[in-house]
């Protein structure tokens, strides 16, 4: 199978669309979850790199 055929198949095959939506949204969810946790933990733990 040459590369152009592979690319065409990737775009025209039925099925992977839902997977892509779920992947994008769940990736965003995990990033946002970590971000909110990071914000809320601000000032909780001792400074790793104390400022001079």
């Amino acid at each position, binding site marked *: 199978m040459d590369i152009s055929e592979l690319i065409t198949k*990737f*775009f*025209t*095959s*039925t*099925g*992977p*669309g*839902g997977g*892509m*939506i*779920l992947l*994008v*949204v769940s990736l*965003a*969810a995990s990033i*946002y979850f970590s*971000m*909110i946790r*990071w*914000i*809320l933990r*601000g*000032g*909780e733990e001792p400074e790793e790199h104390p400022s001079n």
Partner: protein
Amino acid sequence: MLPTTFHPQNNNEAVILAPVHRVTRKDLLLWAVLLGIMGIGVYAYLTQWFTGLGVTGLNRPVYWGFYITNFVFFIGLAHSGTFISAILRLAGASWRTPLTRAAEAITLFSLPFGVGAILIDMGRPDRVMNIFFYGRFQSPLLWDITAVSLYLFSSIVFFYISLLPDIALCRDRLTEVPSWQQKMYKILALGWTGRGEQFKRLERALDNMAIFMTLLVVTVHTVVSWVFGMTVQPGWHTALIGPFFLVGAIFSGTSAVVIVLAILRRVYHMEKVLPVSLFNSLRKLLIVFTVAWLYMMIAEFLTTTYGAISDEMLVVWQKFTGDFAVLFWTMALTVFVLPLIIFLFLGKDHVGWMVVAAILINIGMWIERFLVIVPTETRPRFVSTLMEGMGSYHPSWQEIAITGSLFAGLILLYVVFTRFFPIVPIWETAHSGETK
């Protein structure tokens, strides 16, 4: 027991929190009226659900009418929050702070109705699952759902994290509100204590998210336009459609912010918090957008008419002198001519005139969305599909009622929100960085 919480000192705190203290009878009456309008929309939708899309004015070859116009319009409105909050944050425009939340709330509450408009248009909304099960990467509909889902999700997070310090403030200050409301603040505040490091991290997160949100605002409306642009239909199949949709979205969204701010200012007596200078700043932005929109309009029609391809010209003449001429020239008047006159000669230091212009723009932009969609469908490229009695569109009462209910829903969510959360960010508008 919660640890001691610090809140930035804001001299206008009492004014900003005043609407949150109580729900008045007038509020309940307004909510009831809006719910009533939504009820009519639900009834209209049920008749469509049980009878089918035949109750609408949609027919071959006009598949998209009011519903998809609403979709594009609401997604456009949703750009206000991201524009004001994210883009102006990146630009370092500090005047934006009092109006960021009011603008972001428009984003948050418009998007669900934009998405809902698609489901309503589908007739069989359960078939949206086909996108998940059988979606192909070649389909712009798949790109659209991906982009809009991510935008909605990201907007919720962007809105929520900037609200966190103020929810914590409500939790600590509003002790006389009902216990369920206090519990709500306690849960939503996520244990925010207002430590200096929390604020620093919040600012950093907002700055970084602003970059991402700016990219999203461009991609989302461009992808929405590609649902049209990727077809070979006259008026749609142009690379200009992406930027044109984007400029229109930011234009109508920013105008919506003017309307909302003026209402908040008047009803909640926030003249000091939302000064006239804010409207003057928005006026300057809107002058730029008005001219940019005209430029895009000229670019589109100049390109089309210069080439003068017969299929394209059929649609152009439909707009200039044909069935849609009245709407087209009304749109030109309300989106460009009258607002520009108002902005240049009457709007400075006059909130009332700014609101008039903003309302005109939003009426005109809804018509503009309609004119992008319907005239092309009445004169599609493959004329063989244009059978007798088709190629025209007259919306039914169901479509009008559902459109009304979408707007009522947006207003309802907005007014309810303003009664439970501060609509002006207290921590961002604090006069000093010191905590008390």
